[in-house]
Every structure is written in C-alpha cells, then in structure tokens.
C-alpha cells in the first residue's frame, strides 16, 4: 500500500494501518519533508463543536483519540485541553452559537454558553467594553475539552510509531503519476525516484489533492486557497485558552514557547504559493487589537501560508474513489489539524477493508452527485 | 414626488464643525448636489448627451464637465452625473423624453452619498493613507475619476485640480471616511 503525503493525516493513516489492521507493507511518500506542509503550518487548534451529527461524530472521534494520544504513541504531543472560546458579536452569532451548544450536547459533545463577563473571566486579556469596540462581545461558546497540541510532535510521533512497525517513510519523493492496469485498477505510482507498485493507494495530499487525483483522471470538487498564520515575539504566559472570532476573523492562542499564535483568513483566490496577501493578516491583527488592546504594541515575528483544499460544503472527503484501489482523504479546508487522529483512524479502516468506517461513511465524494451535503459552510462558523 | 431636499438630515455636521483648518491639507464638506446614475448603450448615451449639453466621456476613468454639470465615467456603460439641485426636475423630465424607447436606466441617487473635498499640497498623501491607488499626477491626472476604496469604504474619487480631490461617499460611510481622513491629516494641522 502507498500513502501519498507524510503530513499528520497520512502518517496517522499509516500508523493505524499497522496497529489496528496489521498492515505494515506500507510506503508513505512525501515530496518535501515529514510534516512540512499544513501539519507544520497550522495554528494547532483542536475542537469538535460542529453542528451536524456527521461532523460532530467525526471530530469528536478525533478528540477522544487526542486525549490518549501521548500515551498511545509514547511521545508527548503536548495536547492541552485549555478550552476553545468562540466569540459572538451580533444577534445572529448568539442565536447560531446557542444552536450549536444545544446540538453539540445532543451529540454528547461538551459546549456551553458564556456571557460576556464570563468570557472575560475565562480569558482575562479579553476586552468586553462595548463602548470601545466596533463589534462588541455579546457572549461566547466554550468547549472545555478543546485546546491545542504540538503540531510537529504529532507528525513525529505518528512517524516514529509507524516506522517502528515496519512502515517505510520516503521523503523527497514526489508522486508524478498513478499507474493503472487494463481493468482500470491502480497498480502503483510513478515517483521522482522511480516506480513503486501497490494494489492500494491512499491520497492524503491536502492542497495538492486535485493535482495528484488528476494523475488518475479524477476531477475533484476542490479548490485550493492560501491560508495564513503568524506568531508574535515570545512573552510570559498570559493567554490561558484559545479564542476564536469568526465574525471579525481572528484566532489566537499562546504556544508553550510563549509566542502568540494567530490565524488569519484565506486569501480570496485559489493559489499554490504557500504565502498570501499582507492585507489579510493586517485585517486579522486589526481584530486582535480590538479584542485584546494589551497586545497593540507587540511585534510579530513570522508569518507564512499553507495551501488548504476546500470542498463546496466545507466538510472533508474520506472515501473510496471511482478508481478501484484508489482512496482519498482531503477537503479539510482550514480545519484539518484537529481531526488528525480520527481522520487517520477511519481512513486506515477505509483502505484496509475497502469500505468506510461508520464514522466516515457520510463523507463520500458521491455526496456531490447525490446532494447529501454536510453543509458546515455556515454551520462550522469557519470563515473560508 | 416629495421634495426630499428639505428632509435631509446632517450626517457629519458635528465633525465638519470641529474640523481644524490646514492649508497643507484642507478637508471640507461640499454642498448638496443632485446625482443621477445613468446606464445605457451607445444610442441612449448619445441621446443623453444632448440633454446634458455635452457628450458623456468615453475614455475610461475620466470626467467631463460644463459649468456646474459633471459626468463621471464609472464603467463601460455607467456614468455618474452631478448637477445643481435647482436643475434636477427639469433635467430628469428632459432626459426621460429624450431616452423614450431607448433601453437605459436613469436613477436619482442624490440622497445616497455626500461629497467631500481634500485640497492642498498634501492632499494626495492624505487620501493615500487609506487608498492604495497611485495618485501621482502621471498616474492619476486632473480630470480622472474612479470608484475605489478608502480604508474599508467604497468611494468615488475625482481629481479636479493638481492639489484638489473630490470624494463621493455613501452617507452611512461618511462618518468613517471623515474620521479616517481627519486622522491622516493630524500632522498637517
């Protein structure tokens, strides 16, 4: 078997193929270096407070795996359930978030409504003085089991675990073609380092999924956009949780190194440049400065971009394809990191059994033909 | 139709009154004027020109004027026409007659926006505080006009003189735009 892409999702897939299904004759191919794509570029937020049953099932499966992951891998992924607070700035937000809270509870996912004062108590740097804000804080939805993890450690932990069980991880090895036999089924992949035969190929290539799938003649319901993040200079611990504001677009937390980790929005147009326009990050910093006036004089150290593959309904695809032996795990948009363990776990099942795990059964490609969309575009409150 | 001119409520009066003077970068509110949005194909454009008294500009991003009447090219088939309030009723009637049978659209948008002027040697610099266009005289000469952005607000910007710009801004954005320009000119007052 071949997994295309050695990011968190690909490595987790290989790890669970080995540990859960006993399949160790696996090669993970990576055109760059291990965890060097979106795994190493995201803002490390983990949460599962999604609206729809299908999404809540998938993301909460991941959170449950996160909770035992350091022990499972014997590798500290620094999963910290410090809570994710999503701020509401207008009546629509309030109604929508309360709906989320109720829907989440019905699905066994913790989520609670906080007043503006309770939000400030939970996150003291937060400004809730409505007279100084264009978009005042009217309250927030808090998922206490949510939090952050160390992104690189997740890739390394899964890689080490897979490697120890016999999986081959081949870096600097770009897939250049997908070879198919007379019956149309996959027979292997062409790479920059030669042909590798395989009966099953799982594509976990994030922003480059459309390009890889085109090698097998498959058109995908995907568009790839740059998504930016940035970090500040390191400071003493001051920020106790993760705060997200989708309405004015800001994501912020503090890493264990002390940097404020800030997520911006996607650029307006598709691109593979792994950078992005300055006005996008500037807009996010405007929002950060309004929500947290104490950070106004801080300096930003670095900013960068990753390429996120976005589906029309903003939910991922974890499925078999129209090609026998070809599987795809993609479309995570701006929120794939949080799902890493769950994604790998159910994708490994899909490849090993040639049929989806019940959790990822709804996340097919065919839903874009049949109309069974999992429309988190508005519901996830993710501003793609 | 009711005479809306008497019902206009001030949008930025307090800001205008409190605004400090500056010969380097003066910021002024211009008196009310009538605005028509005109859209049409060549036959209607020609007919409209006869009522206006001069041809609508065909060069992109340029305005033409005659006396107190001005026509700004905003798009390949879209113009903003401004004229004194007292001429509005007669003009609208004459235009309706001239355009009869010619597919076109003429809408009175007078109440939608207000006009400001920024003038003085630092005028371009003040506007560039919120507008990303190249406002050097070569790139944005006298007689040029365009829709663009000032900060987060859409405006129509015209250069009426080497050191004078007019800004047409939607009423609800006027407060924001005025304060943004005021902030930019703080070092020159």
């Amino acid at each position: 078997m071949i997994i295309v892409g050695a990011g968190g999702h690909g490595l987790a897939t290989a790890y669970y193929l080995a540990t859960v299904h006993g399949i160790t004759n696996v090669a993970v191919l990576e055109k760059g270096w291990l965890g060097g794509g979106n795994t190493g570029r995201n803002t490390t937020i983990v949460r599962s407070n999604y609206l729809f049953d299908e999404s809540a099932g998938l993301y909460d499966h991941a959170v449950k795996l996160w909770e035992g992951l350091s022990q499972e891998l014997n590798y500290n992924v620094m999963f910290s359930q410090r809570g994710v607070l999503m701020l509401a700035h207008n009546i629509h937000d309030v109604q929508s978030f309360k709906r989320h809270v109720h829907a989440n509870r019905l699905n066994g996912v913790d989520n609670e409504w906080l007043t503006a004062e309770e939000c400030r108590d939970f996150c003291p740097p937060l400004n809730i003085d409505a007279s100084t804000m264009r978009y005042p804080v009217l309250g927030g939805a808090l998922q206490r089991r949510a939090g952050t993890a160390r992104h690189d450690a997740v890739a390394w932990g899964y890689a080490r675990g897979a490697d120890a069980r016999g999986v081959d991880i081949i870096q600097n090895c770009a897939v250049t073609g997908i070879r198919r036999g007379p019956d149309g089924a996959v027979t292997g992949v062409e790479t920059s380092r030669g042909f590798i035969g395989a009966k099953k190929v799982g594509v976990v290539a994030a922003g480059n999924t459309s390009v890889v799938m085109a090698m097998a003649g498959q058109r995908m319901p995907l568009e790839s956009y740059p998504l930016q993040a940035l970090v500040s200079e390191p400071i003493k611990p001051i920020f106790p949780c993760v705060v997200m504001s989708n309405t004015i677009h800001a994501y912020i937390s503090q890493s264990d190194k002390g940097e404020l980790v800030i997520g911006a929005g996607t650029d307006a147009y598709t691109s593979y440049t792994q950078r992005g326009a300055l006005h996008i990050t500037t807009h996010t910093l405007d929002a950060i400065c309004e929500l947290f006036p104490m950070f106004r004089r801080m300096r930003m150290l670095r900013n960068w971009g990753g390429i996120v593959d976005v589906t029309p309904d903003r939910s991922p695809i974890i499925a078999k394809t129209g090609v026998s032996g070809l599987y795809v795990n993609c479309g995570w948009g701006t929120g794939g990191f949080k799902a890493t363990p769950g994604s790998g776990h159910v994708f490994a099942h899909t490849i090993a059994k040639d049929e989806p795990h019940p959790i990822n059964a709804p996340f097919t490609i065919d839903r874009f033909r049949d109309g069974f969309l999992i429309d988190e575009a508005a519901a996830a409150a993710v501003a793609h | 139709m009711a005479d809306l001119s008497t019902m206009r409520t001030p949008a930025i009066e307090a800001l205008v009154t409190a605004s400090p003077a500056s010969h380097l970068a003066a910021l002024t509110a211009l008196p009310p004027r009538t605005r028509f949005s005109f859209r049409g194909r060549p036959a209607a454009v020609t007919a409209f020109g006869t009522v206006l008294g001069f041809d609508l500009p065909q060069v992109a991003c340029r305005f033409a004027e005659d006396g107190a009447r001005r026509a700004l090219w905003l798009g390949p088939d879209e113009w903003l026409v401004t004229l004194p309030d007292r001429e509005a009723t007669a003009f609208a009637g004459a235009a309706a007659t001239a355009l009869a049978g010619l597919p076109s659209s003429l809408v009175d948008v007078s109440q939608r926006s207000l006009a400001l002027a920024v003038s003085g040697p630092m005028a371009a610099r003040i506007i560039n505080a919120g507008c990303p266009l190249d406002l050097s005289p070569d790139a944005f000469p006298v007689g040029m006009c365009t829709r663009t952005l000032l900060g987060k607000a859409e405006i129509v910007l015209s250069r009426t003189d080497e050191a004078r710009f007019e800004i047409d801004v939607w009423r609800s954005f006027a407060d924001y735009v005025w304060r943004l320009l005021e902030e930019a000119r703080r070092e020159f007052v």
Partner: protein
Amino acid sequence: MLIIACPYCGPRPELEFRYGGEAHVARPVDPSTLSDEDWGAFLYQRANPRGLHAERWRHVHGCGRFFNALRDTTTDFFAATYETGTPRPAGTPADGETSR
C-alpha cells in the same frame, strides 16, 4: 498585494477586485436532461490546476465589470486579462502549464 490589470480601467490594486472562480464553466442549456453525475460535476468539480488557471474576476470597487484572467497559481503572476464572453487568448499555454 497583487496588481491586476482590469481590461477597462488598467492596473489596479487587488483590494478593488473580487475573485469569481474558474472561468468558461458553461451552464448546461437544459439541466433537466443531465444525469446526476454530469449535474454534480457542473456544480462542484473544478480544475484547480497548479499553474495557469483561467478564472473570473470582478472589478467590484471600480468599474463593476466581470472579466477573465489567466493567472499562474504557483506564482500568482497574471499572464493575461480579457473581456468576459471572449475566448481564452490564443497561444497561451493550457491549464496547469507554467506561464514563464
């Protein structure tokens, strides 16, 4: 920030524009005769190429017009812009090819 050449107004900053997705996606003349497969493909499948991409833009804070552009998605370099309704300029590389 990108400088985009509007076919009507000339070079303008990116902020004045809005992206309109893949160009030349023709709406089927009679959707009711299409298979689910084809209708789904029309609605949702996109080329998303790495390299040149024919795409729609709208100069929303300028002349308001839609137009098409050829942009290299690996560099964001604009190879050409052209009026909507006109075919892709002759002699330009295919989607996914590099612009220079």
